């Protein structure tokens, strides 16, 4: 295997394909990819440590800044963790508001992904269409929360703002137009022979691969693993609304696109149910939380990219002692090592994009080498360092080599 890695193509850290700085090394033989190395860390900002210096109310806003695309997923998991820790029961209205915001976010994130896949595949029309129809979702966010992104709708013990019942008919109207647009895009894609040729049978991940690499979210569901936190461990109003967990069997890019589009239609179904409930019933949308007891709690949320996990340990102070975050892309990016091997270079970019990677979520740990920050340590380098250290220790201890 090693002698086949004779030439490589660097992608990044600044590349027209990418939104975020990250670095891929594609090892190629002719047109075929024989290996990949993924180098991240361009996005590390030390959020876990920052969060430990902030009190719980500030923490909700701090974790929101982890990621702009899934910017309610992290606060969602964070408040779930604290409510789990303190045993807080939130009012029913807050549950529906949270579900509504979470599903709206899934809509905008999946549409963004679909547009980018269209862009990668050379379908700029698809990109423009999906991004055009994504705007109403951002308009809804702006109307209900005041900001297009970073909506800050979560708060410990409920939601930050209520949904005004005067806005609900307008929201439903926007959702209706979105649904018809989605159906149009879905039918066009399903019947397009070129799109099918680019995506069917490309970048296949089997059920076994998903289990080996621990893939989550739509990526896993496209390979037939029917795991969804919303169904397997219901939180907020996900136990109260009716929805289906969408799965596909083939595990290729086409299946990933189909799963995401059908998930959007499920999200629209859930949004309608939430709106109906918020319209017909009134009540408080938060409870006052005075004190967070010492203890530890976990919070999970099915983010658009998969399971987002937060762990919080507290002492008696108003700040967490330890805050651990595991974002879905951390698991999903590793599956590239399986999916991209043996594929053409031209398909590789599509496969890397099909994961819907989000590096700003992923990067939790970094090792900075101050003397030569330019150096990239590969697995072999690390092995070499380890061997050298063993030899040095043996020499120092006077043991035979």
């Amino acid at each position, binding site marked *: 295997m090693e002698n086949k890695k004779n030439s490589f193509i660097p992608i990044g850290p600044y590349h027209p394909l990418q939104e975020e*700085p990250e670095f891929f090394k594609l090892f190629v033989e002719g047109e075929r990819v024989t290996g990949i190395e993924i180098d991240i860390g361009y996005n590390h*900002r030390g*959020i876990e440590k920052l969060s430990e210096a902030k009190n719980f109310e500030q923490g909700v806003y701090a974790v929101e800044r*982890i*990621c702009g695309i899934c910017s309610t997923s992290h606060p969602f998991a964070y408040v779930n963790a604290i409510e789990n820790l303190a045993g807080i029961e939130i009012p029913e209205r807050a549950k529906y508001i949270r579900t509504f915001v979470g599903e709206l976010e899934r809509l905008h994130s999946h549409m*963004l992904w679909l547009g980018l896949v269209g862009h990668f595949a050379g379908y700029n029309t698809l990109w*423009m269409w999906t*991004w*055009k129809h994504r705007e109403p979702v951002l308009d809804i966010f702006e109307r209900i929360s005041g900001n297009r992104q970073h909506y800050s709708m979560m708060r410990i013990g409920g939601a930050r703002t209520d949904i005004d019942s005067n806005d609900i008919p307008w929201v439903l109207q926007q959702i209706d137009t979105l649904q018809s647009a989605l159906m149009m895009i879905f039918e066009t894609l399903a019947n397009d022979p070129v799109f099918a040729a680019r995506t069917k049978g490309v970048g296949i991940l089997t059920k076994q691969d998903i289990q080996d690499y621990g893939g989550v979210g739509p990526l896993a569901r496209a390979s037939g693993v029917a795991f969804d936190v919303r169904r397997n461990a219901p939180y907020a109003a996900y136990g109260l609304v009716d929805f289906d967990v969408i799965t596909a069997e083939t595990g290729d890019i086409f299946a990933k696109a189909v799963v995401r589009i059908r998930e959007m239609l499920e999200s629209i179904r859930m949004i309608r149910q939430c709106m109906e409930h918020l319209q017909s019933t009134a009540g408080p949308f938060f409870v006052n939380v005075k004190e967070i007891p010492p203890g530890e709690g976990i919070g999970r949320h099915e983010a658009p990219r998969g399971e987002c996990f937060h762990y919080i340990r507290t002492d008696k102070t108003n700040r967490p002692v330890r805050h651990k975050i595991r974002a879905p892309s951390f698991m999903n990016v590793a599956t590239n090592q399986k999916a991209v091997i043996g594929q053409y270079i031209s398909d590789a970019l599509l496969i890397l994009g099909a994961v819907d990677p989000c590096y*700003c979520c992923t990067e939790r740990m970094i090792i900075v080498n101050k003397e030569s920050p330019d150096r990239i340590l590969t697995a072999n380098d690390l092995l070499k360092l380890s061997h050298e250290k063993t030899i040095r220790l043996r020499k120092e201890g006077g043991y035979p080599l």
Partner: protein
Amino acid sequence: MVNAFTQSLFVFHAACSPCNNCDIEILDMLAPRHDVERFGIQLVGSPRHADVLLVSGAVNKKVVHRIKRLYEQTAKPCFVIAVGGCACSEILFRDSYNTCGPLDTILPVDMYIPGCPPKPEAMIAGIVKLMEKLKGKKK
């Protein structure tokens, strides 16, 4: 020379450890609702073609010398625009152990567009202001 900057700008988008939010809003500017390409504003794939460097995100230790190199690669004069709260002032990341200070301590910044994230309208307004400033200089 200045005249060229008042017509159509070629923009290179460099993201330094962003949260992606400013970046998708920058892409949103190209999407049909705002569509800045009708003004000739275009994203380019190489810093060597760029008139404007659009920088978002808090600069971290791994990115800092790369963003300096990107700026060195651009053809001068090149304008640097700091997009979003992170690039302008680092907001909550100023306390982080891995960030290197706001962008203007690293590159010469010509324009600040604050906001978390700034709306596409704000970015367009910013670029228009930059153009107007250049036109003023010409007189």
